[in-house]
């Protein structure tokens, strides 16, 4: 065991605890950014003027009429920006654009005494546009060769030779939709000008340091003049990694210009029409198998629909390429990636960050090819698993590949998969109008930011004279339970009861230069930084205790608020007393902690290296039942075994697995982003821009039986207290649902039917899939059938 991963006796980590704010959540006492407005005197409210065009030049903008609306205080335009008129880090996102790049793009903002005044003021602003041709679909962008950013290329082995020699070669095309984050809390910022010109921005942001940087460069201020605080977020999922910056900057600009607090909270329609989403992808592929069904070669081109600006599309695409292998050994591989530039919202980070898209391509290939190979898809997947001596296409050894098989075997056994698959087959024989399917899929997901520099974190730990502990770290709380885990880490390292530790909100003036709370890395990075800070304090206190107890400081142990030597004879001293003693001995009782992940290297140009500290593994089995009349379906049972290392907080981790799974299922089966692709006046407009039209999973989509287990004996040497990251990987366990739907649809057709399934696999998409299968089984030619509906 490494010093980082080893746990002391009686650790607080590993205990199943509810979320640290649970009692505040259930009573409504927990405060979110927009809840501060009523607690802030004199706040102004902001409302955007959204362009009704998908691509257009702004030929004139007259704010004057807005000032005739009672209660309008100020219209913010590009002329007001003292610094840089840009909301992104790539300098391709004008905060106040002169060229409208997507339907609903905000061209200016109105501040009012009330939200109603700001809304009416925005209606009064007169803007003239010169419409321009727009690219709406990724196919249109490909045809127009409209690309942006890097064109990564990942290659290993002799792909052409492998495909030439392969016993079976298949090729195909697959386009699948993106996903709206639909965090329940929309984007929100509240900006105030503090004493001495200091700008304080409360922001619902996963990346306070970057929000701070953008606010500073828009205002033309140094970073030390801007502080960003994030109390907590009402969900984020990647949607608040890059996207909050511009909104925070608008609020801050308004506050500096008016001298009053400015609140900017998007309503749902604004949020969904203006903020970026998960990238939809288009893919083409060619794959070769040997006679036993081993993949021998894969060639693919992935085109991510990046939307109007570059945003995080490059690292998203890099992660997609790095995950096209998922859990499978592909000896010869060549993947090209490109980012389409379309007139849509700027697509961005979303739980999995390109990984799900890359893996989906592979799982779709296996699901489509298994019947054509005549191999059971469960067996086809298992047969291609990585072994521990393999390396990924980018050259990283697949450490702990045996855990794939361990998860697989445990799911198969505890979920009684073999017996239930027989039952499914028997059910399907007896029911012509209802079919079931049971599929198993694996996940292997690389943990760390691909960009090595981001893999660092800081923390600040204070021990007060009364023995109480206050911790602060660079990570943000979005519901994932990071703060709960951090409290547990601090209590474990200091050897104090959990109640002695309190956590203060994330602020850029406490811990600077932080990375986004993203890439599932929040607990790994910040936990190690907190542990480092706590260890510094503990070592100083051990010196003091050694003196008091007459023992070597090396032999001092901290446990549950009691400090003792190794020998029972040495006696004990209470934590509070020790702290007080240390203070009077002028011992520093606070520390800044720091951590950087060792052993990472990555060459983005050649797409080679070891970008990940480790891989997280998991396996899911899902059983569905499909109605042949409608294509609607029910999720009967889900069994999951997932590898979280030695869990820091099991209740939190189970919650991440279940929640990630259901969110992934939403992406793959239900959530339906529909952009107007017609040539009509609404071309480019998002048609599903409300909760009434963009449907998230609700109680009716929850698996009827939902069993989640954590893989045992899963210690991870490379992470804090032996744990593993859990935020993103479980999302991809939901591939099992899509593959089960594919199997159920195939059961309507003759044996060996290969199903092409739309994504999302809505009831309509499933209906067309099963209807096609059914037609293949019917001797009489059916009516002309509609083409498979492709989403996105």
């Amino acid at each position, binding site marked *: 065991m490494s010093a980082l991963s080893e746990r002391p006796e009686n650790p607080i980590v590993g205990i199943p605890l509810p979320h640290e704010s649970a009692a505040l959540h*259930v*009573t409504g006492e927990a405060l979110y950014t927009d809840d501060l407005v009523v607690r802030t005197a004199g706040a102004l409210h902001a409302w955007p003027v959204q362009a009704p065009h998908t691509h257009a030049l702004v030929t004139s903008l007259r704010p004057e009429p807005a000032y005739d609306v009672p209660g309008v205080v100020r219209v913010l335009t590009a002329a007001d920006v003292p610094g840089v008129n840009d909301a992104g880090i790539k300098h391709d996102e004008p905060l106040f654009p002169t060229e409208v790049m997507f339907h609903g793009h905000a061209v200016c903002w109105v501040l009012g005494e009330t939200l109603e005044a700001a809304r009416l003021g925005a209606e009064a602003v007169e803007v003239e546009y010169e419409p321009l041709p727009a690219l709406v679909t990724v196919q249109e962008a490909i045809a127009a060769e409209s690309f942006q950013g890097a064109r990564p290329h990942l290659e290993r082995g002799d792909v052409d030779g492998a495909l030439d020699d392969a016993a079976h070669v298949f090729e195909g095309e697959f386009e699948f939709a993106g996903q709206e984050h639909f965090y329940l*809390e929309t984007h929100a910022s509240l900006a105030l000008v503090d004493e001495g010109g200091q700008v304080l921005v409360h922001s619902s942001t996963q990346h306070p340091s970057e929000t701070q940087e953008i606010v500073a460069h828009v205002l033309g201020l140094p970073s030390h003049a801007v502080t960003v605080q994030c109390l907590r977020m009402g969900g984020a999922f990647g949607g608040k990694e890059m996207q909050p910056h511009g909104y925070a900057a608008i609020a801050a600009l308004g506050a500096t210009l008016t001298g009053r607090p400015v609140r900017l909270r998007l309503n749902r329609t604004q949020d969904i029409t203006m903020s970026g989403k998960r990238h939809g992808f288009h893919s083409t592929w060619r794959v070769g198998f040997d006679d036993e069904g081993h993949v021998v070669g894969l060639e693919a081109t992935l085109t991510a629909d990046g939307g109007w600006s570059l945003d995080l599309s490059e690292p998203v695409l890099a992660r997609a390429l790095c995950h096209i292998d998922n859990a499978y050994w592909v000896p010869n591989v060549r993947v090209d990636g490109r980012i389409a530039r379309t007139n849509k919202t700027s697509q961005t980070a979303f739980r999995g960050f390109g990984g799900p898209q890359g893996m989906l391509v592979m799982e779709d290939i296996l699901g489509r090819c298994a019947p054509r190979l005549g191999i059971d898809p469960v067996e086809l997947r298992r047969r291609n698993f990585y072994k521990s001596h393999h390396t990924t296409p980018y050259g990283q050894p697949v450490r702990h590949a045996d855990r794939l098989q361990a998860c697989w075997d445990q799911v198969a056994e505890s979920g009684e998969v073999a017996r239930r698959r027989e039952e499914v087959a028997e059910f399907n024989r*007896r029911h012509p109008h209802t079919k079931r399917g049971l599929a198993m899929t694996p996940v292997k997901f690389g943990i760390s930011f691909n960009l090595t520099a981001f893999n660092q974190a800081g923390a600040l730990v204070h021990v007060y004279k009364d023995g109480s502990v206050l911790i602060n770290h660079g990570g943000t709380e979005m519901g994932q*339970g990071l703060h709960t885990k951090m409290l547990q880490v601090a209590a474990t390292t200091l050897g104090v009861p959990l109640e002695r530790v309190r956590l203060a909100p994330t602020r850029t003036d406490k811990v600077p230069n932080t990375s986004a709370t993203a890439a599932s890395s929040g607990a790994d990075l910040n936990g190690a930084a907190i542990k480092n800070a706590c260890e510094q304090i503990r070592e100083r206190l051990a010196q003091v205790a050694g003196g008091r107890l007459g023992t070597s400081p090396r032999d001092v142990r901290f446990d549950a608020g009691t400090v003792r030597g190794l020998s029972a004879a040495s006696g004990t001293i209470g934590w509070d007393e020790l702290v007080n003693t240390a203070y009077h001995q002028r011992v520093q009782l606070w520390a800044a902690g720091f951590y950087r992940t060792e052993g990472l290297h990555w060459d983005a140009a050649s797409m080679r290296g070891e970008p990940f500290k480790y891989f997280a593994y998991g396996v899911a089995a899902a059983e569905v039942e499909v109605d042949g009349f409608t294509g609607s379906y029910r999720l009967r049972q889900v069994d999951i075994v997932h590898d979280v290392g030695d869990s820091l907080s099991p209740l939190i981790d189970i919650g991440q697995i279940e929640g*990630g799974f259901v969110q992934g299922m939403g992406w793959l089966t239900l959530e339906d982003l529909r952009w107007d692709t017609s040539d009509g006046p609404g071309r480019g407009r998002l048609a599903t821009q409300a909760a009434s039209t963009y449907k998230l999973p609700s109680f009716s989509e929850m698996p009827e039986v939902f069993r989640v287990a954590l893989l045992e004996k899963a210690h991870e040497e490379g992470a804090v207290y032996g744990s593993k990251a859990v935020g993103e990987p479980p999302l991809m366990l939901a591939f099992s649902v899509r593959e089960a739907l594919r199997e159920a649809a195939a059961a309507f057709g003759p044996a060996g039917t290969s199903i092409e399934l739309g994504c999302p696999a809505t009831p309509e998409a499933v209906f067309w899939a099963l209807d096609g299968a059914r037609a293949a089984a019917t001797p009489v030619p059916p009516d002309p059938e509609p083409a498979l509906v492709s989403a996105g």
Partner: protein
Amino acid sequence: MSSTPTITVNGDEVPLAGIAAHTTTLDWLRERGLTGAKEGCAEGECGACSVLVARPGTDAPTEWTAVNACLVPVAALDGQELVTSEGLGTSSDLHPVQQEIAVRGGSQCGFCTPGFVCSLAAEFYRPGRTGDATPAGTGDGTGDGTVNGTSRGTDVAPCDHEHGPNGVDLHALSGNLCRCTGYRPIRDAAFALGAPEADDAFAARQAEPPPAPRPTRVAVDGAEFVRPQSLAEALDLLVARPDAQVVAGSTDWGVEVNIRGRRAPYVVAVDRLPELRELSYGDDVVEIGAALTLTEIERRLAGRVPLLAEVFPQFASRLIRNSATIGGNIGTGSPIGDTPPALLALDAEVVLASPRGERVVPLADYFTGYRQSVRSDDELIKAVRLPLPLAPLVGFHKIAKRRFDDISSVAVGYALEVADGVVARARIGLGGVAATPLRAVATEDALVGRPWTEETVRRAAAVLAGEGTPMDDHRASASYRSAMLGQSLLRLFHTHGPADGPAPLQEVSA
């Protein structure tokens, strides 16, 4: 009508001062610092704004009823009692519902949680809910979401993944969205609830009469919200103000206000008019008051109109059904309302009241165009009449992406009578395939007088597939809508075929 409007929030009576006619209950609460209720969608879809309102009960004098605070104008709550998550408990003294959700990992980001708490609290207090809680111990981090408790109480509804052994019906939470948890821990919390304690003040409140509706007039900046006391008074107001916007549960109008920025100069609330809140089940007609909510109708009919009993659980969410009225569902004239296809199949009639008197219009003649009807500006829908006896073979097929709380792409209501193996009478109502709800008359003709056999059904299904003029939109393609029409009758026959044997259609489609 001139007393100062007030509302009792978490036990404190508060004047409703300075509110606009369109001010929502949610905005009003949040501006008072009660920020537990959240805005997640502003259209009654996510439930983050759920609060409890004391309403006249069906099985108790008063019932705590969960509603979407984002849709209800606060002026509509003049004289009423409201409880928010803050009023149910505090972090140092949690309510049982709060306790179960908190300890089982039922909150992650916490933003939707106060809404879940209120919706679940309403179910916790629902009179008639009986049963025992799931045995404790599912909060141990194993994540085993299996429903393993078998019913040990008496008169307990069957227990499955949507119905707890404690009588909790998860449909109570069908209008609440959570993006974080995947719902399993919330289900476990719901099924772990026991009965309210003997000294529970909220339970005790239900035994007392509900707050009476209060005549209300709120006028600010030239816009008025008026709640008349009687039908006659309401009709006079409509004559005086042809521009009046009539609202009942405000589940449609609230969306217009919030999402489309509509503001009415004059709003007349009719949801508490006693003349519109009667329900009678006679010998030859069922009469349902237009201002009864879907929940009230569901509870008071108690399955006596089987076709409507199929509609209720598929109609929006419990939160919406608690506010939405049957008159409103007809009155908005939407082609995708859930009740019209079923009501058309039931040969429903609409009772329209005006100062000139009452008239009765068959629902089949009521709709004249997209959101247009024969109702004139000075008329109110007073009631819906269903002739008796009811046809014995019924079905309601709603096609949607999501099973709970979605809008249909296509809906079909059936009421058939099969005598001696022959279809004696057929009524089929359709939604989502034209500018108005409509009767599938050609399909009815293809069935009536013919034997209830697969051959008849296949022929009629082909006719049904051609009914209406379905469109392509974000909910479904036109071809899927037509296909669903065609499949629907096959599905009905499969469910209600003449033989009890499995799969009447087996030889054709498998």
